[in-house]
């Protein structure tokens, strides 16, 4: 049997290992009883936040490529998006199976009447649709529509932050930091802003050269 030469770049290996760390640390903390008095809330928050961060990292790959001419970043979009979906799934599973303990009366009340839940659920559906169609086969099958479908990642980024903001009391600042990051990442995709920022970077690098 011939062994194919591994096509994995060091960056990809770092991304894959890094994406598993929150889960390993989380399970370790659960085992050690380090999740605090409200274990369910802590586990829900951690998995949700990890899903959000991975989604934002995935959204950061494209701007990193055109600002820094760093092509390897593009290869991380898919794995980071898939890991985001993985954490979002755990997050949702905890909500349904542990927090609400399959009490569908209460789940219905929460899912249908509460806007934070609707928004979170929608984000999950977007991630699910992108996860399913993340293969090369689906990419070929959907042709032009694949790109359209996967632009929903922008919507997912916005909704994920809104979901977070709607859950906290007024004045809790952390979700707004993520909101700021989303605004930056999405504005970098608007042509005039993109060109302006790119020119800033170019002039700086030509000065140093």
């Amino acid at each position, binding site marked *: 049997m011939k062994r194919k030469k591994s096509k994995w770049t060091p960056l990809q290996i770092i991304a894959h290992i890094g994406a598993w760390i929150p889960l390993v640390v989380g399970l370790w903390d659960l085992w050690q009883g380090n999740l605090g*008095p409200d274990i369910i*809330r*802590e586990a829900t928050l951690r998995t949700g936040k990890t899903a959000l961060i991975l989604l934002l990292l995935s959204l950061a790959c494209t701007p990193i490529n055109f600002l820094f001419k760093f092509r390897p970043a593009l290869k991380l979009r898919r794995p980071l998006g898939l890991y985001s979906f993985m954490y979002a799934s755990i997050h949702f599973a905890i909500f349904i199976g542990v927090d609400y303990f399959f009490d569908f009366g209460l789940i219905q*009340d929460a899912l249908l009447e*509460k806007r934070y839940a609707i928004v979170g659920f929608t984000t999950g559906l977007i991630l699910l649709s992108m996860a399913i169609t993340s293969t090369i086969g689906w990419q070929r099958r959907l042709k032009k529509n694949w790109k359209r479908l996967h632009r929903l990642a922008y919507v997912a980024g916005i909704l994920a932050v809104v979901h977070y903001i709607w859950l906290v*009391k007024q*004045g*809790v600042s952390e979700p707004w930091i993520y909101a700021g990051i989303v605004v930056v990442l999405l504005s970098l995709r608007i042509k005039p802003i993109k060109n302006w920022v790119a020119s800033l970077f170019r002039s700086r690098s030509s000065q140093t050269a």
Partner: protein
Amino acid sequence: MKKIKSSEITPEDIYLSRRDFLKSLGIVSASAAVLAACGPAATSATSQVSAAEAEPIDSVTPAAMADTDELGDPLNSFEDITNYNNYYEFTTDKQRVAKLSEGYKTSPWEVQVGGLVNNPKTFSLDDLRNFETEERIYRMRCVEAWSMVIPWKGFPLSKLLAEVEPKSEAKYVRFETIYDPEGMPGFKKNPWYQWPYIEGLSVDEAMHDLTLMATGLYGKDLLPQNGAPVRLVVPWKYGFKSIKSIVKIDLVTEQPTSLWMAAAPNEYGFYANVNPNVNHPRWSQASERRIGELGRRGSIMFNGYEDEVAHLYDGMDLSVNY
């Protein structure tokens, strides 16, 4: 059905005596090792053991008189109660309040009681200690939909109010938490709130026997994270009404605007009675997570104190007066 971690339902007295037991085991085995290693040192090893035995056990044994509330639900552990706190003057992170408030000085302390009263008075810690305390096991239901069962130590607010003699024009009681931006890091980190923390009750609510001025829990003095040295506990209302570390109480004619009413008037009202039928605009209040349990339990009207307090709100539309 519901799995509860045994550590979370162990009443603190058993939990602590277990610890004492283990601790003494450690000392005993250490002494045994000393004994085995060098015979002549036996006297010092023995004295070590007796010193451990002489430790007054009463000082750590909490005085909760029962293991459950009147509905049969177990008390939350001292550990949980003192490590999961909403106290934004320190931090918005519930699990870091204990650490950040460690060693916060709550003595000396004064509570100024005035406004529309015949006999305004400033209560020192000693004055507060003169009130006869009793243990009250209350459910605490946070507006964020989690809850605990806590054995408070304290005295009814009505006893304190009786000393200052409210005038008949007084309709409301306004409470104020200490304002200490130097000593509490949360003020600077959360400058958008209208500090100090303010809460209020109607005079009827304040005079109700369930309304407690708490000075301790599990038989011990309050720790800073729980609102030392004196806080309010109004068990039929959402937790944010139970204002911590009180420095000022005024009898007034106008309904006080609490910090949360000012921050989000559409979400937090003056009454804030626990009510599973009136949802928070952004989340359901129909259920709650009891700390230490998996799954959820249905929330109960007035947090289970309906028989005692429902009459205070006769004829009031509770979905308007939330």
